[in-house]
């Protein structure tokens, strides 16, 4: 155990946890004021349910002893048994992968990834999903989609990890996974009433920018923390993360201007997030300059990608597909070009660094596997829930808003009516 590495991983766990409220505000600011609590709740609820399920079984499914074929872990760590203290070794984390931090620090760090991944989906299904359906969905999705994919890619025993597919901090496990799942749910739940004709302007962009600031801040833990130590690799991952966000912001704003419009604050925020998404798989495998290129590309590509939804008429309300799915794929594949062993000996060399097409092929495999599994299973899951308890609120509830109908609350009471309410019903 190294105290410096432990300090860094613990801080990183805290930073990643903080990202989920950040995401809630990022999304919450973009919805109309009658739906903001519904959005915040869908995100905060993940901090509750996902955490407990993680302790009960999901950590074990993802990082427990492989049941064979690198498909999923066993339940040996169910209830987080056998993990107290510093002694225990996690399966696969030996040799060059040996942890220098207490296992529970790793458990906590990985947990925060599991919390935010389903939360990413909330942006796509904004304003129309029943809270009860969301609660059920999150629990099941975590077990049947997140756990296996995390095992495949993150666990050294996973079949994709073993084939040499690289994902430093969750390009496939987090972003592609959530992004394509979002698409699946959107296709099942359908469009918001009035979309796209009716105006649905963000109700508070300052709230969205607050979320952006928190996400950017927390993402240092997300990516640099994935070095699992406080070392030169973590420093490289941190600067790569920052540079990609910065370059992506500039890229997005540039396209806005080129298309003859204004540089918008929502564009700056969206661009930064797109860059953070794209650099996630790459953070610890590429050099600084490559990170800038990857980020810039993400800013441009994601801006164009979010226009797709109008062409294909799917209501990805807050562009989870355009930013996380497309950005995640972009990053995972560009890693096939920009990976550089000089940065990380445990990585590989990409096409541009003399590694040929080998890595790109592995990346394609990982992307494809994640897309197929996550989309298929999520689609069936959404259909099943829709067929049973129903996914969607009634038209009247949708018109009145999620805040009052799902949570019996109003987000704001800024006026000073004495009668904003009366005790008792």
């Amino acid at each position, binding site marked *: 155990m190294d105290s410096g590495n432990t300090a860094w991983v613990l801080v990183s766990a805290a930073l990643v946890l903080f990202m989920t409220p950040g995401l809630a505000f990022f999304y919450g600011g973009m919805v109309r004021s009658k739906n903001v609590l519904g959005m915040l709740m869908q995100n905060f609820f993940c901090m509750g349910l996902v955490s407990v399920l993680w302790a009960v079984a999901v950590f074990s499914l993802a990082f427990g002893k492989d049941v064979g074929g690198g498909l999923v872990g066993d339940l040996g760590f169910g209830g987080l048994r056998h993990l107290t203290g510093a002694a225990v070794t996690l399966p696969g984390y030996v040799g060059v992968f040996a942890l220098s931090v207490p296992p529970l620090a790793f458990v906590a760090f990985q947990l925060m990834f599991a919390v935010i991944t389903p939360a990413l989906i909330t942006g796509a299904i904004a304003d129309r999903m029943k809270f009860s359906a969301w609660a059920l969905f999150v629990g099941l999705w975590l077990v049947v989609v997140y756990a296996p994919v995390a095992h495949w890619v993150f666990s050294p025993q996973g079949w994709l990890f073993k084939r040499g597919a690289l994902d430093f901090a969750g390009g496939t496990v987090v972003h592609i996974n959530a992004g394509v799942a979002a698409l699946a749910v959107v296709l099942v739940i359908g469009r918001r009433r009035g979309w796209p004709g009716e105006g649905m302007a963000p109700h508070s962009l300052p709230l969205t920018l607050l979320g952006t600031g928190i996400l950017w801040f927390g993402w240092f833990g997300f990516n640099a923390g994935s070095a699992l130590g406080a070392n030169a690799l973590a420093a490289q991952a941190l600067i790569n993360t920052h540079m990609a966000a910065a370059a992506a912001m500039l890229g997005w704003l540039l396209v806005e201007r080129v298309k003859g419009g204004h540089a918008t604050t929502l564009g700056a925020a969206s661009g930064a997030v797109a860059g953070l998404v794209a650099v996630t798989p790459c953070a610890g495998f590429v050099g600084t300059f490559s990170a800038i290129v990857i980020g810039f590309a993400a800013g441009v590509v994601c801006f164009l990608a979010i226009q797709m939804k109008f062409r294909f008429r799917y209501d990805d309300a807050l562009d989870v597909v355009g930013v996380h799915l497309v950005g995640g794929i972009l990053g995972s594949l560009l890693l096939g070009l920009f990976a550089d062993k000089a940065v990380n000996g445990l990585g590989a060399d990409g096409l541009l660094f003399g590694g040929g097409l080998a890595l790109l092929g592995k990346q394609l495999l990982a992307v494809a596997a994640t897309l197929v599994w996550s989309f298929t299973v999520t689609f069936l899951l959404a259909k099943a829930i829709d067929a049973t308890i129903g996914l969607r609120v009634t038209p009247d509830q949708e018109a009145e808003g999620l805040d009052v109908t799902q949570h019996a609350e109003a987000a704001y009471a800024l*006026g*000073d*009516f*004495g*009668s904003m309410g*009366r005790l008792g019903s």
Partner: protein
Amino acid sequence: MKLVTAIIKPFKLDDVKDALRTLGVAGMTVSEVQGFGRQRGHTEVYRGTEYTVDFVPNVRIEILADDEDAPEVARVIVEAARTDKIGDGKVWLVPVDDVTRIRTGEMGHDAL
């Protein structure tokens, strides 16, 4: 038909609403307004700079009522909204030609 309009203090809205209910008034429309009058506003200070805010927050109540009921409605409001402090507000009546209930198209008295 008359439109009874009242400007009252926000914290009096509940009392006025209940009084009107008791009177049997079926509906009303309320909005937030800023008032200027005898009652002075207040002073705000930001980094040593004083601002005078002349306006005080008030609530406007609008009630459509039959000609014969209107004065009574006004009277009830005056009673319920009164605190005997400067700034209690005003009540006035405006003649209305014609009222329609959107849902049914009913007009006049039936529209209330």
